[in-house]
């Protein structure tokens, strides 16, 4: 009886996973199509990858997107980590909770609201719409994620380690760089990866604050998709899928080393 039920659950899972991955597989499959549509597979070709590599406009956009993602993730990680260290030391519960709620506002807000309000903000301050406004927005919406990733590590930290370090004659700087920082590094890395993916994944906020001239990959795909099918986008998505895979493997290893460290500490 139980074995029968078990098998039905596997069938259900299989269907769900098939649906989850079907569109992605579909895109990648047709990137090798020598035809021009996603309807008929005429034959195998790498032509669209060639077109992609020859499309200097698209390559510039990819580089822009990566630059924005890396810069915003780095800066957001720095500011967010400092913010988490500060929040962790706040002693009045009311103030701490207020800061945490403010921190979470950008996470629960819909993208459209973030985009629209940032657009008003940048226009009011006369920040030119383009690279700088997109970068500032990406830093801004990544900071709270970094804080949420680093804070739990700080809470887990054993306070007596700090006292021990101080008793052994370490000064503040040494305590920070040799005790606190190594301990929260896994959290910082998780925060950095999350910031990176949020930046790469964002469409709505960028769409609002990008202005004319500057474009990121999501915005470019949107404008191309509105014009119809172009298999160059398929080739691009196949390449992006590989990059995503690499990033997931990277993230997985960071998580693994973090849990290994935790196990070692437990011992």
């Amino acid at each position, binding site marked *: 009886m139980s074995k029968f039920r078990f098998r039905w659950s596997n069938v259900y899972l299989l269907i769900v996973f098939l649906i989850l991955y079907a569109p992605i597989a579909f895109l990648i499959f047709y990137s090798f199509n020598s035809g021009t549509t996603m309807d008929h597979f005429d034959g195998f070709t790498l032509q669209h990858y060639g077109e992609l590599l020859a499309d200097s406009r698209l390559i510039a956009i990819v580089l822009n997107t990566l630059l924005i993602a890396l810069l915003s993730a780095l800066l957001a990680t720095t500011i967010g980590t400092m913010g988490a260290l500060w929040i962790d030391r706040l002693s009045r519960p009311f103030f701490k909770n207020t800061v945490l709620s403010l921190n979470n506002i950008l996470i*629960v807000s819909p993208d459209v609201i973030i985009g629209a309000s940032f657009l008003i903000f940048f226009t009011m301050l006369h920040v030119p719409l383009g690279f700088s406004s997109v970068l500032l927005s990406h830093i801004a919406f990544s900071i709270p994620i970094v804080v949420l990733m680093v804070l739990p590590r700080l809470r887990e930290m054993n306070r007596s380690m700090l006292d021990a370090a101080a008793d052994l004659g370490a000064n503040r700087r040494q305590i920070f760089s040799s005790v606190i920082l190594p301990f929260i590094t896994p959290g910082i890395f998780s925060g950095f990866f999350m910031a990176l993916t949020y930046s790469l994944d964002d469409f709505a906020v960028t769409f609002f604050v990008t202005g004319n001239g500057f474009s990121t990959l999501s915005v470019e795909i949107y404008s191309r998709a509105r014009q119809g099918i172009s298999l160059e986008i398929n080739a691009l998505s196949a390449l992006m899928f590989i990059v995503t895979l690499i990033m997931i493997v990277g993230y997985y290893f960071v998580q693994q080393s973090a849990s290994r460290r935790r196990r070692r500490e437990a011992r």
Partner: protein
Amino acid sequence: MSNRRFSNWAFYVPYGLWIGLFVIAPVALIIYQSFLNLDHHFSLENYATFFKSSTYLMMTVNSVWWAFLITIFTLLISYPTAYFIHQLKHAQLWLLLVIMPTWINILLKAYAFIGIFSQSGIINQFLGLFGIGPEQFLFTNASFLFVATYIQIPFMILPIYNALDDLNPSFINASRDLGATNWQTFSKVTWPLTLPGVKAGIQSVFIPSLSLFMLTRLIGGNKVITLGTAIEEHFLTTMNWGMGSTIGVILIIAMVIIMILTGDRKSSEGRLTR
């Protein structure tokens, strides 16, 4: 105690600036802007227009209705998925496989569905095998609902899975030992104890569903107008920022109501932490 005071002003100034400039100021600005009419005068005109116009009110009701449908369908598919994954041997690995599609840019997934649903697309070819003529799938409400649900599923599975993981298995065993049937165990033990996860999932699906704007255009063919679409059009097409902000404020109010209804504060982290 004094040892913990390792930092100085450098630690909170950048973060404090961020809170001031990018959290408080934008919210304040969007509320301020919502009171400005087209001539940039301070007035309640936008709100009056919104609440007097049946178009705006119907659009709001519709948007809430669609978000509700998307959430229900997502929940119906996600709960069993999370439940079954939790029983698997390598559950963490399968969970990673659920998360992976969310790392693929949402635009690319929408674009894939344009190909799948199109007039001569793969679905119509498949139906053609059975002699069913090409049907219009793209730019229908059904396709919008399908794709929106597809995109939201992982965000619902994650919090439910976490809730199942937190559930102490001895409760289930106790319930079985006391003679409860599978259904009784589920409805009296598992479901109530995983309700926080369900609420967290609803929160992280319903609010984004209210504000979807790209899918409504690419997949829904502008037939469904959500609050998000309306805001986007007012800001970027008709350039009526005042009205756009007013709808934005309505959306923020809707969001707050949902947060209160779905309870505890901690769950807002459900979307990102695993």
